[in-house]
Structure formats: structure tokens, C-alpha cells
């Protein structure tokens, strides 16, 4: 019974003001074991979850942003980042952590997991999903 569904994890909040970002990432890490088709979307302030250079030394909380680097090893390599959300916040793809995976279908070539997408592209991606978990 190899049911494969498309799961979308919708992240719209930044990392530390509320618990949603870290607990969303915890779900994604567990989800990897279920061999479903997993995508993550970063919209609105969610884009701040994966910006480069986060440092939590001053707030006494765990800097879990490093954990995003592990996703590629779990075959989670579709991280869709809203182009409009980046632009509204004065950010660009170069501000995002270089998250990568090794493509087993292409001689383990290292490829970027980050896909900056427009609203129209995101619309098409969302329409294909079977389950959407919002955080």
C-alpha cells in the first residue's frame, strides 16, 4: 500500500517570535521517514526562517536554522520561496541560506533546494497538493 501523497508545509511566520517555525521543522523531519512527496513553502515573514546569518546568542533560544541544511539528506529538496514576499522585505535569493541536496538521478550532483517562485508559480504548485499543513 504505497500511497504517496503530496504534502505542503506552509510557513508564514519568522523563526523566534512564536513556536510555529521550529515545530513545523520538527514535523518535516519526521515526515521524511514516510516517503511522501514533501514541499515547503515560505511566504510572508516565513522567508525569514531561512535567511543566512541568524544568530540567537543574544536571546537564549536554540538557533535551529542550521537544521534546514539537513533536509537535503532526507530527500526534502523542494523549498519554494515567494518572490513577492522576498521583494516586499527588501530581500533577494542571495540573502537565503544555500540549502542543497545531492541528486541521485544526476550522478549525485549538488543542486539547490531553494526555488524562488512567483505567486503564479506558487498557485500551480499549491493546486497539486493533497495535504496542506499550515504553521
Amino acid at each position, binding site marked *: 500500500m504505497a500511497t504517496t501523497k503530496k*504534502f505542503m508545509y506552509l510557513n508564514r511566520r519568522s523563526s523566534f517570535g512564536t513556536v510555529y517555525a521550529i515545530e513545523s521543522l520538527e514535523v518535516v523531519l*519526521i515526515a521524511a521517514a514516510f516517503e511522501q512527496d514533501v514541499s515547503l513553502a515560505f511566504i510572508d515573514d516565513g522567508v525569514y526562517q531561512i535567511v543566512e546569518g541568524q544568530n540567537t546568542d543574544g536571546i537564549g533560544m536554540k538557533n535551529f536554522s542550521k537544521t534546514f541544511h539537513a533536509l537535503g539528506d532526507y530527500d526534502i529538496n523542494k523549498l519554494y520561496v515567494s518572490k513577492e514576499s522576498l521583494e516586499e522585505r527588501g530581500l533577494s535569493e542571495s540573502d537565503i541560506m544555500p540549502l542543497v541536496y545531492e541528486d541521485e538521478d544526476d550522478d549525485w550532483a549538488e543542486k539547490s533546494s531553494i526555488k524562488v517562485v512567483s505567486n503564479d508559480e506558487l498557485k500551480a504548485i499549491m493546486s497539486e497538493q493533497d495535504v496542506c499543513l*499550515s504553521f
Partner: protein
Amino acid sequence: MKFAIQVNEGPYQHQASDTAFQFAKAAIENGHEIMRVFFYHDGVNNASSFTLPPQDDRHVVNNWASLDIKDADGNPELVVCVAAALRRGMLDESEATKNSIEGNNLHPAFRISGLGQLIEAGIQSDRLVVFGD
């Protein structure tokens, strides 16, 4: 149709658990099945047997219990995420004993389990609906 529900907020703080309860009740009354309700984030507080609202307020925890959501073997399908629960001081007897803590507060209509139960609910249900803030 087979529904799964995710509840992300604690009772009384946010309407999410009330809306989720009303949704689940209406689904059951209309012949659908709620195969699992998964409580995550502060939603784990929906399972506290120590909940004592004033008499003129609704009892959110008892509301959930009244839905009698169980699997075929009679195990509760009101499932509380273990990691989120332990972080927030929501313990069943076994977790309390394991961690040498006196007392426990998980209402018997609920059970504690892992996040895999949420993913499994997403796979096995026809629809998963998230209630949060």
C-alpha cells in the same frame, strides 16, 4: 468521508479548538468519520484533565471527550504530540513515571504519541483540516 483534524492552539486562549470541535461534531452528525484529531503546539493543552472552567463557560476538554473518537480497538484517536506535550507539562502516567514526576494530567479520552501520527493521519484520511492561529 474520513477526516483528520489538527488543532494548534490551546483552549480558551484562541477560538481554534472551539471551531475544530464544532467542525468535528457536525462532521460526525452528518455521517462522516473523524479518524484522528491531532493536538500540536499549545493545542496539547486541550487534553488537560486539570481543566476547571467556571460553570457558565463551556468545558472544552469534556467537549472533546464527548465526541468519543476512537479506533476500531477502542483506543483514543484524540492524539497529543509527545514532544509538544512534554515541553508544556502535559504528561500521562507513563511519561510522569519515566521522568519521576508526581501526578499526571492527560485526560483518559486522549493519548500521547509521536508526530508520525500526524503524517499518518494526512496519508490515511480523505481530508486533513488545520485549525490554528
